[in-house]
């Protein structure tokens, strides 16, 4: 009952948030200088040509009118037409979303695996040189932002020791016919593990660049929580029962230590998705972020709006999922 009410409250908050984002992005991109119509016409277009096109896209009306028309359309699921690509925004955006989602989730998994492993090793070998090594590694990983890691990876594995692809989501020679835009998931479900491996190796470099800072944050916070938990009485009690230290860390301490990290991952995952904008560009990965940069360069207002709102919706959903997970994992909250 309380759970249901919390859920409804959250859904309402999400709706308000999305509306706020819509308002802000709509007006913000319109006060930034740059005329989208002028940019799509060849040089030497007449004033009348420009005015005609302005009217076609509704840019001749007042800002408030434009907003009302646009939000009315959005509520009906119509996000308008891209000015630069001349296709419905919703089609474009939804066509690119899977690529970005797959990249982000892959990066998230790498971050959790790397961060979790380092936190575990740091806890197992606490107060020793190994823990210090973990601390130095995570500190270094954190002090460098993801796009610089991208450049490092491009130099290392693209140029010096070219073992991983650093460009594009699929190799042009890949003959597999995809019927959806979720390439990795589709290949997986169709049991074409060779294709899965191909896709994963293509996106490994951008995913790793995105994952490194998050892995470091996860490692630091989780190790700290684990170490604190390792002092607690029930952990000590488990040790006296004959369990190995590894078992004690993973089965006794981890379930209770993981909650703060889980919340953090939720927040940081949205940052990670934000990071795809630049990372996709650097690795020529055909995702939403790459499209967003083109949209901004072209002053493609409907497309920018569509992408921003989709990102915002994604972020609120992720936060909701994390909060729900939190309740599921913590019995005290469930029965409160």
């Amino acid at each position, binding site marked *: 009952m309380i759970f249901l009410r919390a859920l409804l409250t959250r859904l309402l908050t999400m709706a308000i948030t999305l509306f706020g984002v819509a308002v802000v992005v709509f007006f913000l991109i319109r006060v930034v200088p740059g005329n989208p119509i002028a940019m799509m016409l060849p040089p030497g277009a007449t004033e009348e040509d420009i005015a005609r096109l302005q009217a076609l896209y509704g840019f001749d009306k007042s800002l408030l009118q434009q907003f009302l028309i646009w939000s009315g359309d959005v509520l009906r699921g119509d996000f308008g037409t891209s000015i630069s690509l001349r296709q419905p925004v919703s089609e474009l955006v939804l066509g690119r979303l899977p690529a970005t989602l797959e990249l982000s989730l892959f990066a998230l998994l790498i971050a959790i695996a790397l961060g979790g492993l380092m936190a575990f090793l740091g806890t197992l070998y*606490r*107060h020793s040189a190994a823990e210090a090594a973990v601390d130095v590694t995570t500190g270094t990983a954190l002090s460098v932002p993801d796009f610089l890691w991208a450049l490092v990876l491009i130099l290392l594995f693209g140029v010096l020791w070219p073992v991983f692809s650093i460009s594009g989501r699929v190799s042009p020679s890949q003959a597999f016919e995809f019927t959806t835009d979720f390439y990795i998931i589709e290949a997986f479900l169709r049991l074409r593990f060779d294709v899965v491996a191909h896709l994963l190796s293509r996106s490994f470099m951008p995913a790793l660049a995105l994952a490194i800072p998050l892995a470091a944050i996860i490692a630091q916070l989780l190790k700290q929580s684990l170490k604190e938990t390792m002092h*607690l*009485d*029930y952990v*000590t*009690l*488990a*040790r*006296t*029962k*004959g*369990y*190995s*230290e590894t*078992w004690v860390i993973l089965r*006794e301490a981890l*379930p*209770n230590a993981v909650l703060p990290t889980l919340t953090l991952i939720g927040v940081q995952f949205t940052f990670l998705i934000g990071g795809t904008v630049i990372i996709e560009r650097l690795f020529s990965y055909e995702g939403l972020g790459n499209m967003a940069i083109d949209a901004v360069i072209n002053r493609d207002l409907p497309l920018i709006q569509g992408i921003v709102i989709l990102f915002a919706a994604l972020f609120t959903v992720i936060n909701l999922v994390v909060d729900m997970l939190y309740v599921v*994992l*913590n*019995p*005290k909250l469930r*029965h409160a």
Partner: protein
Amino acid sequence: MTQFLDIRNLTLRLRGGPIILWSVSLRVTSGMVHGLVGESGAGKSMIGKAVLGTLPRAIEVMGGEVWLDGVDLLALPPRDRRRRIGETAALIPQDPLTALNPSKRVGPQITRRLIDILGWSKSEADQRARTLLDEVRIPDIPRVMRSYPHELSGGMRQRVLIASAFAAEPKLIVADEPTTALDVTVQKQILRLISEMRIRHGTALLFVTHDLGVVSKVCNSLSVLYAGRVVEEAQMPRFFMRPIHPYSRALLAATPTYLDPDGSLQPVPANVIEDVENENHHHALRAGYDV
């Protein structure tokens, strides 16, 4: 008379810091209750931790031996040591509110180790848990086994922990101030319960406490610890009648029950040791410690 636990000249110190235990020796005979008394900070818990292999990493063993059931624990590699301890000893912890894993149901917290480590079947382990929970007089056992720790009272949780300590039939239980964290009204019951359980199961007990009154009720012998040293080791009725070390006398004097109005010591009242008047106790007296 086998010394089930035999600590010889155990010296511990904080890494790069002060000595915490100074050449401590202590013996617990099979099936007997040995008290370990001393004020807070004396090092009582450290002795318990040395026996159970849970010394903090900041603590360094400078020397000594901890013989448990004929094996020197300190000479074993950590993995074997842990296994050995898990098979032969158990802990009744101080604070029942923090000693159960908050995210696990109570039942599995008793049964998991029987299944994981000792290789019992799930139904055997469940049956065992039910029997033990019944022995510690927990009502509505199926519900309790399904509960999370926060759904139970402190006294109930301590009963669960006692049951859990006896689950694998250990030969030695370390009880580290098992009633200190409880309400006064519950303390007595829990104390009785521990005595009763260890008699039923024939388990030796290393009973850590700062309360001499408690010692007089449950112990066959005791060691008095002061600032990391054992200052007196004694058999039970004798200690209360003729404490030798000045610190022991001071400790006794601070326990008003045993003093006459004029300040002289009283003989131990018969009821004080009622809980230990049982087979094991008589057996111990017949076998005779070196008093």
